[in-house]
């Protein structure tokens, strides 16, 4: 960034490979926890919303409001309560996944054709088995689409958590900014984009794999 300096100093990269690997690991870990917990919470809330329709408005409102709060602000607001810890980061990250996950789980289950549900009930499916054996498998494409969006968004947000003391690739970007050093800056930035794309592709392939009937035409 200073004149004359190359954009990327490869010797630095070579010398810091284990640091880079560590940050990637942290990044993936933070993302996995957030999406995993988010999925559980969203699933529980979705079942409640599907069962008690009146819950939909307040739930969407709260999740939507959480989503609107800028990430930096949300993390910053949590710091006085839970400190500069991984918990702070995860609370914020999980909160951001909720809107899209709930919307897609509820929407996916609702999009199961009415006649399929009626036929299943008429044949003697209990409500529980109906959910697990009919509604969820059919809702899977929409749900996985939601997981994709939630995961990609989370990967982006994890970079911001570096500001509240968590690691990940954002850490590299931060030290790049603080030290006026473009190498870690660009390495962190490029790798977080690459990670997002890689995971997106992996999830698309997973989605195709678990829905064989969608391909049979």
């Amino acid at each position: 960034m200073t004149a004359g300096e190359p954009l990327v100093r490869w010797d630095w990269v070579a010398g810091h490979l284990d640091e880079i690997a560590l940050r990637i690991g942290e990044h993936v870990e933070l993302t996995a926890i957030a999406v995993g917990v988010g999925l559980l919470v969203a699933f529980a809330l979705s079942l409640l919303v599907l069962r008690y329709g009146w819950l939909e408005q307040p739930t969407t409102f709260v999740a939507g409001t959480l989503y609107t709060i800028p990430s930096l602000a949300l993390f910053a607001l949590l710091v006085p309560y839970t400190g500069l810890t991984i918990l702070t980061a995860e609370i914020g990250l999980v909160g951001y996944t909720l809107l899209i996950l709930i919307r897609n789980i509820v929407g996916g289950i609702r999009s199961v054709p009415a006649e399929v549900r009626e036929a299943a009930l008429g044949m003697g499916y209990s409500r529980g088995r109906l959910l697990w054996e009919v509604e969820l498998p059919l809702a899977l494409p929409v749900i996985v689409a939601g997981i994709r969006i939630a995961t990609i968004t989370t990967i982006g947000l994890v970079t911001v958590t570096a500001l509240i003391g968590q690691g990940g690739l954002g850490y590299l970007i931060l030290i790049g900014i603080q030290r006026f050093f473009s190498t870690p800056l660009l390495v962190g930035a490029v790798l977080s984009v690459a990670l997002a794309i890689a995971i997106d592709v992996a999830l698309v392939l997973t989605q195709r794999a678990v829905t064989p009937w969608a391909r049979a035409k």
Partner: protein
Amino acid sequence: MAQRGATVTFEDVSKTYAGGSAALVDLTFTVPSGAICALVGPSGGGKTTALKTVNRLVEPTSGRVLIDGVDVMTVEAVALRRRIGYVIQHIGLFPHRTVAQNVATVPELVGWPRDRIRARVAELLDLVGLDPARYAWRYPAQLSGGERQRVGVARALAAEPPVMLMDEPFAAVDPIVRERLQDEFLRIHERLGMTVLFVTHDVDEAMKMGDAVAVLQGGRLAQFALPDELLARPANDFVREFVGLDRWRKRVERLRKAGLLA
């Protein structure tokens, strides 16, 4: 493949919804074991509601529905439904399961052994005119409308139910396919002998398929009789018009005029 039928009795069955609208009023008639009973009437007349009281998708506000003398409300709903075949207009095949898996649904729910299920699926696909070798592994999305209808019927028959409920089962296909499906269903019924209640808005279909016809109007039973009797002695003007007696008379007139009838 002998299969008993069960007697289905409606005993003063009424259904009123929360808003006060009455869908069924004092419905009383008995479908003998092994008979096909067609439920006809104008839309909103209560025929689908009546059908659904048999497998408790609708529960009567008063009165009883009996299967072989047993009140359906005294049997656990899920267990009841597994013993009744149910075919609806758009079938509702599970898109995420193959044809074989669809047909095997109720036997699996009930817990039959694998071999028995496999044999039963092949037997049924044959019965409905679908070659198991070609169709068993296909998904519903790969089938034509007529093929889906057949799978729907096979699925409903899988667990050897004594009673079968059908709600406009052949309405969603074109007339040529419909006629073929009707004939084939009559053939299947000959072999199996289960009691069938089916709803249709097509009077001709009711006359053709039904051993007995129940005409519902405004939730009430206008007439319950054999098809011939419906034509010969309609209970009231509504039934007469509904059955289209004028239509018949006009046709006879025309044929007579053309010198084709004495």
